[in-house]
């Protein structure tokens, strides 16, 4: 059974999701901060979505990680590479609890996930689906080197009013 590999960066640890991740993550997804992630989602729904992103490691060989700060083991949020059936290709996503924003943690974790992907897969590309009004996420995607790809197919059922595609490419 494939499980999430643990990845350590200077300040972060990406590791498989644990049960203790669910209360803070489900609270986040139920809050106004989830406006760019499909809206406030009831805990019952977000449990299932997160569990499916863990099961994705078995089905796809990639999925989501819980993110911890190595200095104090604080749970900070989630980074994942996922491709549910609605997605035409694998997608890198990130979400941090509000208390951990503004320190470059998301960039550090997302870069680690990207590096893992270039190492673990044969693919030369990865996308991030971002709400067009989510300026912080767009800035982060750009900082990671991704470029807007207006020709990329969108997830089934989504249109340009809710999703723009930023494309990451394997470094040459």
């Amino acid at each position, binding site marked *: *059974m494939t499980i999430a590999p643990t990845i350590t960066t200077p300040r972060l640890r990406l590791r498989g*999701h644990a*049960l203790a991740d*669910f209360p803070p993550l489900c609270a986040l997804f139920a809050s106004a901060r989830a406006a760019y992630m499909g809206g406030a989602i009831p805990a019952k729904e977000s449990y*299932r979505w*997160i569990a499916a992103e863990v*099961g994705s490691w*078995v*089905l796809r060989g990639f999925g989501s990680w819980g993110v911890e700060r190595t200095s104090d083991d604080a749970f900070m949020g989630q980074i994942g590479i996922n491709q*549910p059936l609605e997605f035409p290709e694998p997608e890198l996503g990130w979400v941090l609890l509000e208390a951990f924003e503004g320190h470059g943690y998301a960039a550090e974790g997302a870069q680690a996930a990207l590096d893992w992907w270039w190492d673990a897969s044969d693919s030369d590309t990865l996308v991030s689906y971002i709400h067009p009004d989510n300026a912080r996420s767009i800035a982060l995607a750009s900082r990671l080197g991704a470029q807007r790809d207006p020709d990329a197919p969108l997830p089934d059922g989504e249109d340009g009013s809710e999703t723009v595609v930023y494309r990451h490419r394997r470094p040459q």
Partner: protein
Amino acid sequence: MTVRATDRLTLRPIAATDMDDLMPFHLSDRGHWRGAGPDAGAGWAWRLCAIPLGHKQIHGFGNFIGRTAAGEAVTSVGAFCPANWPEREQGWSTLTDTTEAANTVINHDRDELGWDTLVSYIDPANARSFALAEHLGATRDTTAPRPDAGDLVYRHFGAAA
């Protein structure tokens, strides 16, 4: 870990290879009882396969697939306890036959894992499912907390905490 292998039935933790049997079930009329059905869409049916695979990693227990000696999948049965569930719940997806597998897994949970109690949450409109619960020896628990107010709670063994 194989919980049981007889001439009739082998039970193993669900794996990626069981998708081929479970996806069509979720998209069938009977998938309705597990939160899917013909109108649910392949994306949601895929998630319903991924969720128990993730649950097993998160909780350390979960669903088993029951197969005949010929390899035919007859049921998916096992315990589920998402973050908002009041207690561990035994569920089943009957492809063709659940009784023997459910009995085996319930006994395994009690005798091998040492669990104190186990319930099933059943939609009152799902007559076949609560008939099976009763056939398995479960009794109605009218006072136990439940995820949805309309669910029936059947307790297989032990008493509410």
